[in-house]
Structures are given as structure tokens and as C-alpha cells.
């Protein structure tokens, strides 16, 4: 494998996805296959992690290392993996409930730490796997299985939260726009530090079969010449009504977790060529 060209399908494993026909998540995984192929990252050097949700089934369809853990906690797992194995490309696939409801705290902290992980948020504004309850991204007023009288709460915007928490790469795209997605995913994966790609990924079963028709006219690329370097500017494309701006909203260079940890090791005097002996540590405990 290592010498020949890796095709998108080489990142796909033989399992047939259990997603509903028409689910947006098909687009996301297809874009991911292509992005990885474009970057030619060896399969064995990639780990895709997730929590629980329809979206979190994604690692199971990859021909890479995969980890489908518990609901809401994929980011800590990914952070631990990346910190200890900087040589791996670490990608997290998450649902909006997984990421900004039960996992909201971890999301903020992964962004703050600038953990070198690509966070692929499959944002469908609903709880898919548990069959249609309200998500923190569900529009206000919407009726769902758990908000029969209309969702009383305004939605949060994952990109806005990421910006507030200090994320260094924040982008938004649409699951059916494979080309746009592949491009953004490639950049996100190449980014040093925490990158979030908020992908609107329709749940046709619980948000309705018309989701694609609903979203398509709303999509709007970032304005020509937009430079994604100002946090406050980026916020103008968050929490939008009526439109959905796609593209890289924000990007900043700041040392990632891996680099920070390398620096600390250096300050602490770690010498890979001559690792210390435990005896030296023990000596400090003599009076």
C-alpha cells in the first residue's frame, strides 16, 4: 500500500453503513475518504474516534484505526491518543448532541488546549440515534419527540462556541457539497492544533425528507476576499438566520498541544538520547 496511490475507496472498509437511505452522514464519510486520499495519509497512521450517535458510527466504516467509545467523550480519548502519539492523524466524528450537549465541556477544553485533532461535527439539529429528540442545535420552536409544544430554547452555534473557547481553525460546510467538504477537511487535517468542521448533515428521518431542499438555497460561501484571521469578524457568520455561510471562518497559528508538550519536555531536561533513570528520581527522596 505504502508505495502505490491510495484511492478514496482504500479508506473504506467493507461494512455497509446502517444509516438511513439519504442520511447526510453518507456525504461526510465519502468526503472524508476523498480528503484522506488527497492527503495520501497511510491508513495505519490514522485514528478516527467517536462517541455515540448515528454520526458516531463513522469510524466503523473506515479502513483506518477506529474507536467508537461512549457518548460525548470522544475528544478526551482523542486528546490522550494524540498527546502520546503525535505521529498519528487523529480525527473525531461527532454528532451535535454528542458534541455540544453531553460533550460540551470537553469540546471547550479541547479547543482551549488546541489539541491537534480534527473535529468533524455532523450537525443535524436532532438526536438521530435515539429517534428524534431535541438537540442543542435544534431551531427554537421546532417540534421534536421531546418538545411537543415547540423547542423553547434557542440553538447554540458550534462554531461560535469553538471561537469563544479559543479554537484555531473553525469552518462550516454542507454534507452534500462533497467538493467544498473535501477541501475544508484537507485544510483542517493539515492544520496544527484544534480544527472544527461543522458539517450540516441532514437527518432525513427525523428532520424531514425535505432537508436538502431546505438547506440548499440558504448556503452561501464566505464573501470574496474574506480573510479568516479575526475572531470577531468570524462571529458575524455565526448564529445566522435565513442563510448559512460556508467556508473557513477562522484560522490562527498558535502552538498546538503536541508542540506545547514538546516544549515542556525540553524545559524539564528530557533527552531522548539519554532518558533518565528512575534511580535519579528516587535519590531526591533521601534526606
Amino acid at each position, binding site marked *: 500500500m505504502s508505495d502505490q496511490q491510495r484511492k478514496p475507496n482504500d479508506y473504506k472498509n467493507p461494512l455497509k453503513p446502517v444509516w438511513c437511505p439519504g442520511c447526510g452522514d453518507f456525504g461526510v464519510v465519502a468526503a472524508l475518504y476523498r480528503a484522506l486520499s488527497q492527503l495520501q495519509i497511510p491508513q495505519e497512521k490514522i485514528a478516527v474516534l467517536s462517541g455515540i450517535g448515528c454520526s458516531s458510527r463513522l469510524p466503523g466504516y473506515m479502513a483506518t484505526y477506529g474507536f*467508537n*467509545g461512549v457518548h460525548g467523550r470522544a475528544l478526551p480519548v482523542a486528546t490522550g491518543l494524540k498527546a502520546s*502519539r503525535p505521529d498519528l492523524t487523529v480525527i473525531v466524528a461527532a454528532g451535535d448532541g454528542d458534541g455540544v450537549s453531553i460533550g460540551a465541556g*470537553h469540546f471547550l477544553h479541547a479547543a482551549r488546549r488546541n489539541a491537534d485533532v480534527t473535529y468533524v461535527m455532523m450537525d443535524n439539529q436532532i438526536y438521530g440515534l435515539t429517534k428524534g429528540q431535541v438537540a442543542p442545535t435544534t431551531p427554537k420552536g421546532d417540534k421534536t419527540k421531546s418538545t411537543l409544544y415547540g423547542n423553547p430554547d434557542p440553538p447554540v452555534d458550534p462554531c461560535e462556541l469553538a471561537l469563544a473557547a479559543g479554537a484555531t481553525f473553525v469552518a462550516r460546510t454542507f454534507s452534500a457539497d462533497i467538493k467544498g467538504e473535501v477541501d475544508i477537511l484537507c485544510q483542517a487535517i493539515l492544520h496544527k492544533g484544534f480544527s472544527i468542521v461543522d458539517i450540516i448533515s441532514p437527518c432525513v428521518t427525523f428532520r424531514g425528507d425535505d432537508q436538502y431542499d431546505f438547506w440548499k438555497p440558504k448556503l452561501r460561501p464566505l464573501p470574496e476576499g474574506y480573510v479568516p484571521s479575526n475572531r470577531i469578524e468570524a462571529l458575524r457568520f455565526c448564529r445566522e438566520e435565513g442563510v448559512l455561510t460556508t467556508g473557513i471562518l477562522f484560522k490562527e497559528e498558535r502552538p498546538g498541544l503536541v508542540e506545547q508538550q514538546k516544549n515542556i*519536555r525540553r524545559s524539564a531536561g*528530557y533527552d531522548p538520547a539519554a532518558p533518565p533513570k528512575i534511580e535519579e*528520581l*528516587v535519590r531526591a*527522596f*533521601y534526606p
Partner: protein
Amino acid sequence: MAASDLVVGAVGRGGDGVILSGELLMASAASKGLYGYMVQSYGPQIRGGESSFRARFSVEQVSSPGDFLDILVVFDWAAYEMFSNELVPKESAFVLFDEDNPVPEGVRLSGTKLAAPFAKLSKSASGSLQAKNMVMVGILGGLFGFGAEGIGAGVKKRLAKKGEEVIKKNLEAFEAGFSYGTANATEAAGKIGLEYSPGPPKLVLSGNEALALGALHAGCRFYAGYPITPSSEILEFMGKNMWKFGGSFIQAEDELASIGMVLGASFGGTKAMTATSGPGFSLMTEMLGLGSMMEIPAVIVDVQRTGPSTGIPTKSEQSDLWQAVFGTHGDAPRVVLAPSDVEDCFHAAVDAFNISEEYQLPVVILSDQLLAQRKVTLSSLPLDKAVVGRRTPAEGDAEGGYCRYRLGSEDGVSPMAVPGDPRGIYQTTGLEHNEKGEPTSSFELHEVMNEKRYRKLKAIAERYRYVRRYGASEPEVGILAWGSSKGAIKEAVAKANAKGRKVAAFIPELLYPFPKHELEAFLKPLKKVVIIELSYAAQFYKYLKTFLDLPEERVILKKRSGGAFLGVSEVEAAIEEALK
């Protein structure tokens, strides 16, 4: 005749420097090759509040902080009130206090009262009251012939950061105290001094430190944790030392993240650990189950404190046993180790990593506050202790496609590929899965996979039987206990044996899977079995019953809440009752 064993206690409030004086006494004892054992107590206030220590010094190894004090130093009587239960002087004790601060009306305690010029000497020798604690250490040295030597090195080391001037002043205060003590050494005072011949210096270690050292020795190269008393010293140790070994350290946002990070690092092939106390441990149980299901090695330390809920965070208890053995939903095998002294903490850490890596499952180490935060002297640590690694796919294991959860091995373990290995690519899940790791809802697969996961416990039970046994070889009375209670029990058993009592103690250090056969053999000849534990709900006693049939009619259960140490005399009383 001087004693071979000396128990000193001191109490004061913020600014009195009580804790530092205790540490200096420990350092001085260690530098002379004496054995020492020190515990500390604090009031609820973080700074300026009450604090105390009790330290025991001996020419022989001691395993408990002793019951009653030979020497009590009181800087502040209101503070003393707070700890008066923990610091009870013997009849023969000496009680020292500042001459400006005499024993108040109404305070009744035994021992010879000695007023000493702590404040005055501090002021005259160092120019301030700050060095009262040094004067105290000096006076003790002078009066009781103990701790005088080696103190200089201790002061220099402990106060290094404060600079030359401070060190000098402190040493002068010490000298002033020492001269005063020597000059006033009464014959009586001489009697309780320690008589010893100096030996090679010893290590001074807490259980938390020993455990962290053990983890590094075992090859732990990833630590994630969240601060919580009484485990935070492990976090702080790792935050300081992990880097030097090329590892990673992360203070996580909470305990859910801590264990998540540990599983992630371990999935990546790195030996990983987290430490917490009860409240954090409860939060970890969901992902403990994930580790068990995914068969990922992970070491989780729970330093127990008094519960339930926030309880008494600074005091010891043995009430997280059920959570460690039974916690998490579903049938989720894990291993539980329980060290019972500071040196054991080192061993337990290495054993935990060995078992965890070899059998690919989470291992819980149940420590407790008394074990974790006490400081003791040790002759050495066994740095040659064997360390084993994880079974990874060998040539041929991936033939016909690598199966992460291959069935059929005798011990339930299947080779675990490390990301980066192109032949071992797999996807794991917390859903029930087939041999390849693919999700399934087949009942048949669920049954065989449960069987596979539990088979590991059988293999471990056959291979490891960590048990400590003390006392008579043909006992009539046997004591069953675990964890830090061992100290007082060991001592009480030795005393009883010395009086000819046929008593022995059985302290399992592998709690789950339980060394059943060893215990059954121990129980057989006994006329009486005394179970001692610091859990109101009798978690140990009830846990034992899940795995074996205790001879109920011969069992005496001595259980109580934690929050106060098990005393040697408490154990002695239980022994006498059983012998009756």
C-alpha cells in the same frame, strides 16, 4: 533506660510552622537511618488554620502512628481542642507549650507539663516569631537527645528556595532551642529519649509518591488527572516528573476526561494512568466499563477518603470497595488491587500495570488517605522489579485478516495491535462486537464475548495471589482486613504473639479476583475470625460473602466508620474479645 520508640505530636495554627517542624524531624530521623512514620491533620481553613502532626520514630520498622504520645507540643490551645482526639499523651508524656501561652483552665490532659520559651528564643535568635518551630525542634533535640544531627541538611533542603538569610536565621533559632533543651534536660526527659546507633540514610516517602514512582518504573508514560484530595500529590508528582521521561501529562477538565484520555493513550500503545478519590472515581465508572468492554489496559487509582459524597475529604475510610469491585453498569470485569503500606504502593503500581497490560483490562488501585499521605522512611525501593508489556500481533496473527478480539486463547487475551501497524488495523467499539470488533446484537456472540472477558479474571486468579500474612503459624484467632488498617493490625498481632496469643492476620492485596483458596486455607484452623474494616456498611465483610461462605458462627465483625485511624489498642481489644 531510653525508649526504642518515640511518638511526638505537635499542634498549632497557620504561621506556627508545625508541619515543617514535623518534616524536619522526619528528615533528621531518616538521615540517621531511623525509621519514621508521620501523619498530618488540618482544619478546614487553607491558610492560617489549625494543623498538627504526629510522628513516630523507632530503631525498628513501625507500621502504625502509635496510639498515645510520648511528647506533645502545643502552640495554640484552641487548635489543640480540634485535634485532641488524635493527640492523646501517655501518662508518662511530656507536654511542651510556650511559656506565654499556658494551659488554659478546663483543658485536662495527662503528662508532665513543661513551659518553654519558644517565642522568646525565636525573637532573640532570628528577630521574628516565624522561627518558633525551629526553636521547638531544637528544644526537643536538646531535651530528648533526638533529631539534633542531620537537621542542618534538612533545613537547607526544605528552605532552599527562601535563600541563605532565611536558612541562617532558622538554624540560629534551632541552635538556641537546642542549647536551651540541653541545659534543661531533666533526668526524666532523658528517659524517653531515643537510644540508637546511626545507620545508612533512609528514603522519606508518602504512599502517593511511592505509587507515582512505581508507575514511572512500570513504564507509565501518560498521566491525565484532575486534582482531588487526598490524591493530588500523584497528579503533582506526574506534572513535575513525567516530562523528564519523555511522557505526557494533562490536567484534564474533569474526571470523565481524565479516564477518557487514559483510554485514548492506552489505545495508542502507551502505558497510562489516572488517580482520583471517591467523587472522581464515581464519575469514571461509565468509562471503566468501556475499558473493560474494549479490553484496553488502564490503571485507575482511587485514594479513598471518608464518604459518602464529599464526606470528610481529608480523612481515611475504606468505603469505596463496592464501587471498585461492582461499579459500572453491565458485567464488566476489572481487577482491584489494595496496597497496605507505603512500600506496597510502589509494588501495587507496578503490578497494576503488569496485570493491566498483560490481560488488557482496567486495574483499580484502592489506596486511602492514611496510606497515601502519610510519610514513612524506607530502606530502599525494588527498582529491579520486573515489568511486562502488552501482547501485540506476532507474525501470523494477522493471517486471514487481523481479529482484535480473536476467541480461543486460554486466558481470554487476544493480541492487541498498536496504531501505526499496517497489519493490525481495526475498529473497536463499546457495543458488543464480533472477533473483528464489528458491532453485533447477537445473543450468542454476547455470551461468548462475556465468557472471553471473564476468562481473564480466572487466569489472573490462578496466577496472582497477593496476600500478606502475619503472626502465629497455627493461629486460633485470625484477623481479616485490608488496606491501611494493616499497620495497626500487624503491630497488635506482634504484641499478642509476644504474649503467647495464637493470632494471625490475613491481608489480601489482590481484592478482585479474590485469592479465595488462600483465604479458605487461612480460615480452616481458626476458632474465631475477626473482620476489621473502616466502613459503616461493612463493605469488606459483605464483599467476602459474595465469593465465599464465611463460617458465620465464628465471625466477629469489627466495623466502624472511617474518619479516625484504626488504633493498635482497638485491634488488641478485638483480639482479646475473640480469645475470650
